[in-house]
């Protein structure tokens, strides 16, 4: 990751980050993402068939039909949500150990991208659920409720990060919150599972869905393309976080220099006055 994000912890920031967030590597990565998105769009909307199979009665068809195409965004977004927020928690833990801005910036970048992906997962899930399950929201579904709590917990993380504070204190608070969010998830998952002990995900999709070759290929392509997109976004957000930290530090240094100059001025003026006084008190 360091060749993408910058140098290893506790060293000077990446040179590219001094003026902008792009570099040759990210431009190549961005071009790859664009090509991947176009390919995914073609596979998802044109080449892959709708989910349709013969029904129990002659002449009828059952399935998810065109709604299944949402799966190519929903499933990759869900997978990468967990990866991004898991990375945030891991980077938070390492920050508490190493106390390096590098890890703090990585945790911040992953949390922001993770929350956006989590929102995409929830929204696409709800849009999918309405025609397939007949409801926008199902309280008994473990994954659904756990994902919502995860979203709320990390939205709180971003809210904390947005409050102005000393950089070191803010990073430490955010690291503990990032880690606390990860601690929460297995407990929420367990509690919701005991609560209803059922999940519509398995009943209505994975067990019933017959994944055709092209459907499976499109799904795997979606996971791969979403992974590239997440990596591209995290790299840029990381470099932006680094730039913010640099700008904050530069602003502080400038303010300190200004105050020092202000403090020095009256002394110089006073010395001048004293000198004049001495001069006038001379012969």
């Amino acid at each position, binding site marked *: 990751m360091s060749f993408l994000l910058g140098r290893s912890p506790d060293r000077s920031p990446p040179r590219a980050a001094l003026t902008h967030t792009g570099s040759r590597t990210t431009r190549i990565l961005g071009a790859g993402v664009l090509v991947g998105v176009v390919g995914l769009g073609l596979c998802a909307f044109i080449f892959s068939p709708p989910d349709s199979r013969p029904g129990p009665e002659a002449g009828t068809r059952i399935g998810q039909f065109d709604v299944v195409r949402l799966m190519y965004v929903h499933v990759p977004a869900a997978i990468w949500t967990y990866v991004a927020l898991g990375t945030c928690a891991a980077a938070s833990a390492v920050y*508490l150990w190493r106390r390096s801005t590098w890890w703090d910036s990585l945790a911040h970048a992953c949390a922001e991208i993770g929350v956006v992906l989590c929102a995409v997962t929830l929204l696409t899930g709800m849009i999918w659920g309405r025609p397939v399950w007949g409801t926008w929201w199902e309280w008994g579904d473990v994954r659904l409720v756990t994902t919502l*709590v995860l979203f*709320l*917990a990390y*939205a*709180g993380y971003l*809210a*904390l990060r947005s*409050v102005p*504070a000393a950089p*070191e*204190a803010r990073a*430490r*608070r955010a*690291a*503990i*919150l990032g*880690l*606390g969010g990860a*601690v*929460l998830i297995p*407990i*929420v998952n*367990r*509690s*919701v599972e*005991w*609560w209803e002990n059922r999940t519509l995900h398995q009943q209505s999709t994975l067990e019933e869905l017959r994944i055709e070759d092209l459907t499976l290929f499109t799904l795997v392509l979606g996971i791969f393309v979403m992974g590239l997109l997440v990596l591209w976004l995290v790299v840029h957000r990381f470099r932006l976080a680094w730039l913010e930290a640099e700008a904050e530090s530069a602003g502080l240094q400038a303010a300190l220099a200004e105050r020092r100059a202000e403090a020095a001025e009256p002394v110089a003026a006073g010395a001048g006055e004293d000198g004049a006084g001495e001069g006038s008190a001379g012969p």
Partner: protein
Amino acid sequence: MREVLLVAAKDLRIELRSRVLLYQVAPFAVATLVLLGFALDADRSALRNFSPGLFWVAVLLTALLAAQRSVAVEHAGRAADALLLSATSPARIFAGKALALAAQLAALEALLGVAIVVLYDARVEHFGLAVASAAAATVGIAAAGTLYGVLAAPLGVRETLLPVLLLPVFAPVLIGATRAFGDALGTAAVNGWAWFGLLGLFALVYAVFGALAYGPLLEAET
């Protein structure tokens, strides 16, 4: 242990002298139960069936106020600095403050317990389960409240930030305690002791995590 009790006694003494808990937090808790009763159209059977959930919603909302109050007393006049200078370890300060908060919450839960019996016609069928699950939930709420309270304390927006941070954390407590109370009050056919186990796990995880994380948080504040 002595230092833990000293910190807890200090917090409880402040509450006894200021009477914020008695004059502000307790009326808020009862008012919440009354408003929830109005929200359910004052239907007695519905209120009785939903009394476990309504009770714990009221407790959690009240816990937000109590947690804010717990850290506000340390933040005023930089009392937290004096605590750190006393050379008491952060883990013991955390344990003392969580203990004091748990004691306050227990008093409020007793009040709310009487209130749901009177207002919602709730009937306790398994008293031991009710007390045990309330104790486990209270320790968990107090541990999480103390930890997240100090996290938001030095920030100017703590009144709005703390609920955003704490309410998702309270989600498993609400689920577990509601189900355990459902068994204890005879409104749900579930194994309440299994839910007591989940509440105990939550309390243990947040007590350990809080004791470990409290030191770095106090350092960040000073």
